[in-house]
């Protein structure tokens, strides 16, 4: 196994920073910035006084940014509520926005680039119109993209507010209908819990939150935020893991939702990369249920050990680029059968060759 990057060591044990040389601080800040964890690092180091001034100023900067983002989330959620309240349907906040609004320990310093929500599939059109009425706009006018999203994806094209510029991703499921895994998102929607003082605005139950985060990271995402999402999982597991019966519920729910494989990866790599404490009975049970065949596991270790490191040159080895590329292909392959996938990837390759950017391409939610 590769040596842990400095950032991971500090995430595991913040006291590791005492006695770092300026040169090491320089490296730590760069790794954290590239992993989108600079503000999280600022939060974890809040207790440490007299950090070297140049490092402190980068930490303060990222922290200020994260604080403002959290406020933007609160304001956006209020606006989403305003736009959707007439529909009276449950609106489930996903990932970052959920952590912020629920005030979970995963929230402080968590950077996010958009707000993801999950709504009942049969009301998608009503939701889209309501958002249009309150100033959001469809981002992809390319007919191919529109068709791709609406036919194959579990979300409509991202909508961007015309004045504030905030982006919202509206999902009707946590995975595309064509995906290998078939979790029943309506089951998760059914048990969603309303936020205090908010009728329609909900979050998943703790176990569903974790299973969704794991699924997104290991079966959907393209891992550009790999380590950050792993840190989310770490924070959620540490927080809820102390509650009575939590691990039993988590495993049972994973079976119900057909998500034992992503759960296995989640427990394996949080423990491996950021030393998340997991009771051994849970490790054994999940291994029995979700452990892939040895050869596949060896490959996954090879890929994730690299892709879950900070996306910074100081953390790469000669195979990192290959690993990220293979996982990128995998994320698409897990999303749809090859005969659908190939034409799409070829088109994407062609488009990005023309200098098009992720915003102009149908990819799974960036957040």
């Amino acid at each position, binding site marked *: 196994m590769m040596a842990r990057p400095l950032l991971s060591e500090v995430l595991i044990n913040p006291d590791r920073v005492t006695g770092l040389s300026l040169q090491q601080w320089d490296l730590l800040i760069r790794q954290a910035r590239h992993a989108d964890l600079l503000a999280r690092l600022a939060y974890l180091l809040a207790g440490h006084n007299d950090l070297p001034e140049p490092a402190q100023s980068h930490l303060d900067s990222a922290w200020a940014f994260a604080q*403002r983002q959290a*406020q*933007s989330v*609160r*304001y956006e959620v*209020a606006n989403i509520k305003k736009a959707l309240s007439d529909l009276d349907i449950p609106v489930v906040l996903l990932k970052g926005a959920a952590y912020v609004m629920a005030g979970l320990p995963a929230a402080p310093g968590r950077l996010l680039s958009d707000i993801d929500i999950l709504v009942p599939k049969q009301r998608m059109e009503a939701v889209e119109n309501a958002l249009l009425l309150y100033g959001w706009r469809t981002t992809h006018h390319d007919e191919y993209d529109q068709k791709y999203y609406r036919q194959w994806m579990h979300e409509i094209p991202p909508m961007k507010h015309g004045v504030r510029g905030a982006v919202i991703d509206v999902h009707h499921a946590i995975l595309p209908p064509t995906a290998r895994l078939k979790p029943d998102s309506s089951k998760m929607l059914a048990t969603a819990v309303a936020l205090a003082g908010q009728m329609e605005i909900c979050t998943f139950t703790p176990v569903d939150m974790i299973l969704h985060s794991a699924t997104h990271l290991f079966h959907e995402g393209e891992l550009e935020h790999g380590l950050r999402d792993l840190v989310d999982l770490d924070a959620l597991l540490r927080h809820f893991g102390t509650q009575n019966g939590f691990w039993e519920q988590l495993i049972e729910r994973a079976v119900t939702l057909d998500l034992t494989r992503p759960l296995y990866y989640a427990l394996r790599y949080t423990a491996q990369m950021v030393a998340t404490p997991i009771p051994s009975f849970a490790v054994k049970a999940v291994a029995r249920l979700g452990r892939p065949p040895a050869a596949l596991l060896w490959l996954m270790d090879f890929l994730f050990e690299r892709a879950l490191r900070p996306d910074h040159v100081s953390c790469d080895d000669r195979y990192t680029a290959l690993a990220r590329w293979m996982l990128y292909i995998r994320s698409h392959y897990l999303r749809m059968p090859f005969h659908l996938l190939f034409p799409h990837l070829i088109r994407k390759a062609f488009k990005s060759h023309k200098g098009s950017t992720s915003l102009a391409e149908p990819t799974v939610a960036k957040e």
Partner: protein
Amino acid sequence: MSPSGWCLASGFDPLYKGWDGETLLYDQFSGDTHVVDDLCMAIIELLAKGCLSEEQILKKIVQYIDVDPGIDFDPVVQQRLAALVKLNILQCPT
């Protein structure tokens, strides 16, 4: 629990500083920044104490502001109310 009369928009959380009849105002909830005149500020400070009907506003506003007698005050206040609603500073009577 829907508010009756004119109210500050829900969540509206202002910081402000004024000079010579103009106030620079920042809404910590929306992040919007405004420059408003004294009459707007008087209305905002008045409604900060609670929701009021238009009649009440017109009656109480003079405690906040010296009005030269002999000018038709009401339309000017109504104009401000409508404008402040558009800026998400106030919300309409429901």
